[in-house]
Structures are given as C-alpha cells and as structure tokens.
C-alpha cells in the first residue's frame, strides 16, 4: 500500500512539474490558439492531455503487468493524474492572489481561463480534474482493448492527430476538394478526424497481410519459375520510382514551402554522405567540416557573380557549369591540405584541430582584408543558377531534381567504396588504427582519401547551396553546420547510408515542420532529440552486418547455410 502511494505521488509530481513548466513558459497558452480538431481540442489542451496520459503510463509501467488492470492499477494511475490536476489547480488559484505574473510573465488570466475551461469558481477546477482523469483513463482503456486492435487504434489516433498538427504540410498535398473537407485552416474538421482515424485503422490492420504477401512474392520471384513475377515486380518498382520523380513537378504549385525544406534536407544529405565517409567509415572525427562546404559555396559565388569588381578585373563571370568543377577541385585539394597536418592525431585532438580549421575559413571569409575577393561580412549576391541550354533552373522544385541526382551520385560512390578494399581499410582504421597498420594498410593515403572524398561532397553541397540561395553570407558557415551534420549522422546511425537520409529528415526536416510550435520550436526539437537518443542510442537506422553484393554473388546459395545476425 505504501509503495503504491509513493509511486502515485512520484508519478504525479513528475507529471505536475512538467505541466507547470509547459504552462509557465507559455507553451500551453500560445498553442491554445490552434484548434487541432474543430471545436473539440486545441494543441495546448492536447499538450496537457499528453502530460496526463504520460503520467498514467509512467505510473502503470512501474506496476507488474498483471496488476495493471486490477483495482490497484486504476487507483495508482488516476491518483497520479489527480496529483497533476491538483498542482495545476493550485497554480490556477494562486496566479491572481499571489501576483505570479510578477515573476512568470506567462502566468496570465488567459492561462487561468484555459486551465479552468472558461468556467469560474469550483466548477472550473472540477472540469480540469475531469479532463486530466479522462486523459489518464485513456492509458487504462488501452490495456483493455484486445490485441492487435490496441496498437492499431492508438497508432491511428496518433497519426491522425499528427496530421492535424502538421496541417500546413499535409493539406496542400491533397486535392482542394478533399483537403477542404478534411481540414480547417488550423487543423482537422470533426468529420475529417473520424474519417482519418477509420482509414488509418483499416490501413494499419491490413498492412501486415499486405507486407507478408509482398514478401512471398519476392521469395517466389527468386525461384527459377518466378520470371513473370520478377518482371511484374520490376515494372511496379520502375513505376514507383517514376511517380516519385514526377511528384515534385506535380506538386510544385502547392508546396513551394515543402520544396524549400526538401532542398535544405537534400543539401544536408549530401554533406551527411560526405561526413559519413570521414567519420562513419574512417572514424576521423572532423568538426571543421563546414570549411569544405564554405569553400565550395564561395568558389561558386566568387567565380560566377557579376559583383566584386576586384575579381572581375581578372576573370569574367563564369556560368554554373564552368565554376562547378573548379569548386569541386578546390574543396578536394583543401580536404587533402587539412588532412596532412592531422594525420598523426586521433580522437579528441583531431576534433579540436579540425574545429580550428573550420573557424579559420570562416574568419578569412569575414575579414576586411579579403573583402575585395570574398565580399566580407555582407557576403556575395548574384550567384549563377544552373542552366540547360536556354532553360534556367530557378524554382525550389527544379533544384530538387539536381539535388536528387547529386544525392544519387553520393550514395552510389559511398556504397561502391564501402565494400571495396579502400572501404575496408577505412573501417579497419576506424576500429583499431594500430592493428590496421600492422595489417599493412597505408593509413596516410587511406585517411587522405577519406578527407578528400568527404570534402568533395561537402564542396558540391556548398556549390548547390550558394547557387540555390542566389546569395551567400559568412554567417551561414558557422560551426553549427558541422555540428548539425555530425548530429544527423548520430541520429541516423553512424556509418549507415539510409541513416544519413533518415537523420537529415529528422534533424533538418523536423525543425521546419515544428514551425507549428512557434517560439517553442527549439524546445520541442531538443526534447525530441533527447528522447530519440534515449530510446534509440544506436541511431534511427543503424548499420547491420551486411552481406555485400560480391559476397552474395560468390557464395550464392551457401549463404543460407551460414549464420547471419
């Protein structure tokens, strides 16, 4: 009894503190303006509901499984939620008499109204309590739904709410008739929410069957009689690729914002692929990676802009395609130049030296001395855009194709190198440099090649970046870029190529999507990162022990007799 009481209060206090924090930083109030489901729930209320639900789940999670659905479970979960309600209720009561706004400027009368559901007096507090009891009870109800419906249903509700939150992104993708029916300017219509939940339940319910059938098809296709199936699968695959490729052109009018985000994600993917070679494959912790990005970007800008009279005396402005090889070459060479002095250093020391290199490049760019050449603090405008004959690549969605092709090349190079002698040498150096050297690996050339390949991809990303933005300024090339690219590798999973894509989407795409959270964007983003790292420390898509193409070819059927992790 005593332990249950303690559990109840602990869960309640944790939940209460989180709720206090969210309300006093102003998140609840700010997000209350957005109705996620018309006339039913706002984003702010959803947040509080999440706290209630989380509190109950936490409390129930500490109980043994079989006792969760007994009276004890109800008691502890609802008790914990009541503690949260008590804390929020006290806050609502205390705001006015204690003049809390003196210290917490978000403790406004509006917040009190939100917490008490616009109802004055005791009734308002009861409503708050009921609201939290309801959110806590959801966790209990979940326990009573038979499998597999519990998962299906909760996922469907979750995805639907997410669609409501990310309305700005989802709605423009749908034809106007459908999106007007499902969405309001701030969220979902009531009928839309119901329809979406039902659709998602159906989809999630039948998805495993469908997946199993796909897998049997794939297996049949492997057999000698499977030729027709194989052909059909290939066609389906090609059609899918084609649709994906045409999607930007179809959606271009609706989602220019979407493509701006996607372009940025793509540029980060290119950089991620490069840094993945340096850090993920070769294990060389490079914190000055932004330098190569800057070199690519500035070479492109300096060579193509009509500005900078000092430079123009000597070289006439080039077009995009003339400047690109020079930009790539320069970043490649600078990759090798950085590599030479740091060959002997490892780990932390390597990180600090490369960090310094990144800063040197940034300071050079911003310096007054080099202003006639590099444009100084104002940067450079008028960077050339890629042209194909008379066609000028101008729009975000058009750039997206170029970026897509570059990503393809980057992935191609990475996969080819990963399973080669060079790739193995990199991995050996990453795992244990002494032993690698004792195996006769030339660590000097292996490391320099890694730096050069990584720098090449960063330079490419930089050239595309400056061309797409039309102008560049030094502040775009600070150390945060290096950190971000490194983070996307960690979030995606070190050394894993799909991980780079997933990591870039999560790290660059997510903050853009989180614009819904306005000024609390970074707070939510930080929390998401922490949660991600707590629950998936090896990354979202970690690399598995793979069977390479050559291995499959050489060993063929014998692979089936081998143990595979």
């Amino acid at each position, binding site marked *: 009894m005593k332990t249950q009481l303690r559990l109840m209060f602990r869960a309640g206090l944790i939940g209460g503190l989180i709720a206090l924090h969210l309300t006093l930083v102003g998140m609840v109030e700010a997000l209350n303006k957005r109705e996620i489901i018309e006339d039913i729930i706002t984003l702010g209320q959803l947040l509080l509901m999440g706290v209630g639900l989380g509190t109950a789940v936490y409390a129930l999670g500490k109980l043994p499984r079989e006792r969760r659905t007994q009276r004890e479970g109800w008691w502890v979960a609802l008790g914990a939620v009541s503690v949260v309600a008590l804390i929020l209720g006290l806050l609502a009561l205390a705001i006015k008499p204690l003049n809390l706004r003196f210290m917490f400027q978000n403790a406004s009368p509006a917040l009190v109204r939100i917490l008490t559901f616009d109802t004055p007096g005791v009734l308002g507090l009861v409503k708050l309590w009921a609201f939290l009891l309801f959110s806590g009870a959801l966790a209990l109800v979940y326990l009573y739904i038979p499998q597999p419906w519990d998962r299906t249903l909760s996922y469907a509700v979750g995805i639907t709410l997410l669609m409501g939150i990310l309305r700005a992104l989802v709605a423009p993708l749908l034809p106007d008739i459908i999106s007007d029916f499902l969405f309001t300017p701030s969220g979902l219509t009531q009928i839309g929410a119901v329809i979406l939940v039902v659709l998602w339940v159906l989809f999630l319910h039948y998805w495993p069957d469908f997946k199993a059938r796909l897998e049997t098809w794939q297996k049949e296709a492997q057999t000698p009689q499977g030729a027709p199936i194989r052909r059909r699968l290939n066609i389906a695959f090609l059609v899918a690729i084609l649709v994906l490729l045409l999607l930007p052109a179809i959606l271009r009018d609706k989602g220019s914002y979407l493509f701006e985000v996607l372009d940025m994600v793509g540029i980060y993917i290119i950089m991620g692929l490069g840094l993945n070679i340096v850090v993920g494959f070769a294990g060389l912790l490079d914190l000055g990676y932004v330098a190569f990005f800057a070199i690519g970007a500035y070479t492109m800008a300096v060579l193509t802009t009509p500005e900078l009279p000092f430079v123009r005396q000597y070289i006439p402005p080039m077009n995009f395609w003339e400047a690109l090889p020079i930009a790539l070459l320069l970043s490649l060479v600078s990759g090798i130049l950085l590599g030479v002095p740091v060959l002997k250093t490892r780990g932390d020391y390597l990180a600090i030296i490369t960090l310094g290199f990144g800063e040197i490049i940034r300071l050079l760019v911003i310096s007054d001395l080099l202003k006639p050449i590099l444009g100084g603090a104002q940067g450079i405008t008028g960077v050339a855009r890629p042209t194909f004959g008379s066609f000028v690549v101008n729009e975000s969605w058009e750039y997206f194709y170029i970026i897509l092709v570059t990503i393809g090349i980057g992935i191609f190079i990475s996969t080819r190198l990963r399973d080669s002698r060079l790739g193995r040498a990199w991995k050996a150096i990453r795992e244990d440099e002494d032993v*690698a050297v004792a195996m006769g690996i030339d660590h000097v050339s292996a490391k320099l090649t890694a730096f050069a390949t990584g720098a090449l991809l960063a330079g490419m990303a930089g050239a595309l970046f400056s061309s797409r933005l039309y102008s560049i300024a030094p502040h775009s090339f600070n150390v945060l870029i290096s950190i971000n690219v490194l983070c996307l590798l960690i979030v995606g999973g070190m050394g894993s190529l799909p991980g780079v894509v997933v990591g870039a989407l999560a790290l660059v795409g997510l903050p853009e999507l989180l614009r819904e959270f306005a000024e609390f964007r970074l707070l939510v983003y930080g929390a998401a990162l922490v949660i991600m790292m707590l629950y998936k420390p090896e990354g979202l898509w970690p690399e598995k022990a793979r069977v390479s193409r050559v291995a499959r070819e050489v060993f063929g059927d014998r692979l089936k007799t081998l143990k595979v992790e």
Partner: protein
Amino acid sequence: MALLECQHVTKRFGGLVAVNQVDLQVEPLSIHSVIGPNGAGKTTLFNLITGFYRVDEGSILFEGEPIHWLSPTHIARKGIARTYQNIRLFGDISVLENVLIGMHTHLRSWVFEPILGIRHFLDEERQAYKRAMELLEYMGIGEWAFFKAKNLPYGQQRRLEIARALALEPKLLLLDEPTAGMNPKETEETMALIKRLRDDFNITILLIEHDMRVVMNISDIVTVLDYGEKISEGTPEQVRSDPRVIEAYLGRGAATAMAMATSSTAQGD
C-alpha cells in the same frame, strides 16, 4: 641464414630497460618460442619487431635486410603478421571482412576501380572473398562469416585473429600468447593447430607464452627472457633443465626442487 635476426636489441622506457641487448635468431620454418615471466619484455620485443616501437640500440634484420627503421605498414608488407595477447579484432565489422582486411596488401584497387566497377577489380574481389572463406573454413569458423567479429565466442575470436594474420600470407607469424584464457583442452588444440599452420602454410612461427609447459611439445627452439634479458636459449629439453630458467620462474633455491620434480614427471610419462 636466419629468417629474423635481432642483434643486441635494446629498448628503454625512461629509466626502465624493457629489452636489454637481446640477440635472437629465428630459423626458417621453425617454431620458435619466447617465454618468460610476466613483465619479462616479450610483448615489447614483438612491438619492436613489428615496428610499433623504435629500437634504441641494435638492429633487426628480416631476410638479411634491416627492418627496424621501417614503418609498421612496410614491415607488414615484408611479410610479418602478428596476433595480440588481448585479442584485437575489428569488432564492428563482419568476420569475413576482418580476413579481407588481412589481405589488404595483396589486393590492388583503390578509389576509381570500385566506383567505376572495373572488371579487374570485381575479379580480384571475388577471388579475395573465396580465399577469405577458405581461410575461415580452415580455421573452422566459416559458418560465422557474416557475424560481427565482436559477437563471436571467445575461442572463435582467437581463431579469427590467426585467420586474419594468415590472410597477409606472412613468412613470419608472431603469436602473442595464443592460449591466454583457454582451458587445458583448448590449449592443447591450439598448440596442435599451430604446428599444422607451420606445415600447411610453410611459415615460420615466433610464439610468446608465459606458461612454459605449453610450448615444450611443439617448439624447436625456446628463448627465455627475464627482466628484458635473454637468460637461456636452446631446445625445450635444454631450457627445461637450465637452473637459471627455473630460478627466474620460481625464485632462488627452487632450481633443485624443480629438477627433481621434472625428472619424476618424465619418468611418469
């Protein structure tokens, strides 16, 4: 001519003389053991031969050429491979790739061949994969080829380390306490394996062991180090009965007792 020759090799760490004026001659196709108590300088000697430490005095010749000024990479390329006392595998990559890395010096491709998918490169890779698998099967760990090396059982890890060293096609194989952490039965198997390695691959083996009983049966020559100095050398029988060796292992005064003990075991055999 000896395959490997250490001449008056000395290595100091600050005031400590880890290896002091050691002479060593390893004859081709022999199994040569270096034994000695913990801290006798055996592993330091290995690190000197493989180029991880610079010798302070003296020289090391391999096939008559001085190698003590070469980098570890180049010494490996001359045909010296080693294993480690505390197994050092490339843990996060597959067992097969560990062996392929051992083959590094015998493959030629670098950046452009794999990217362009040149036929010569693909042929080379196929050959390498086949040979790597053969080596793994020879060592009896073929079925683990696609496991991450760190997930292998301990005994298998030792075998993999030897397979990786063999992949280098060395002329001289240095084994640093290959039986560390093994029970008597595994130890016996490993020793039999080492003997087979010499015969099947035509290589010379230089072996470190601190437990002298282990190497007696398979060694052609045994060198005994103590406090960095060579105190005895000869056939196992000669070394076994050398009073200085017994003293180094068991302390002063134990020599006589030990001599009696060994003679009685010899009768027991």
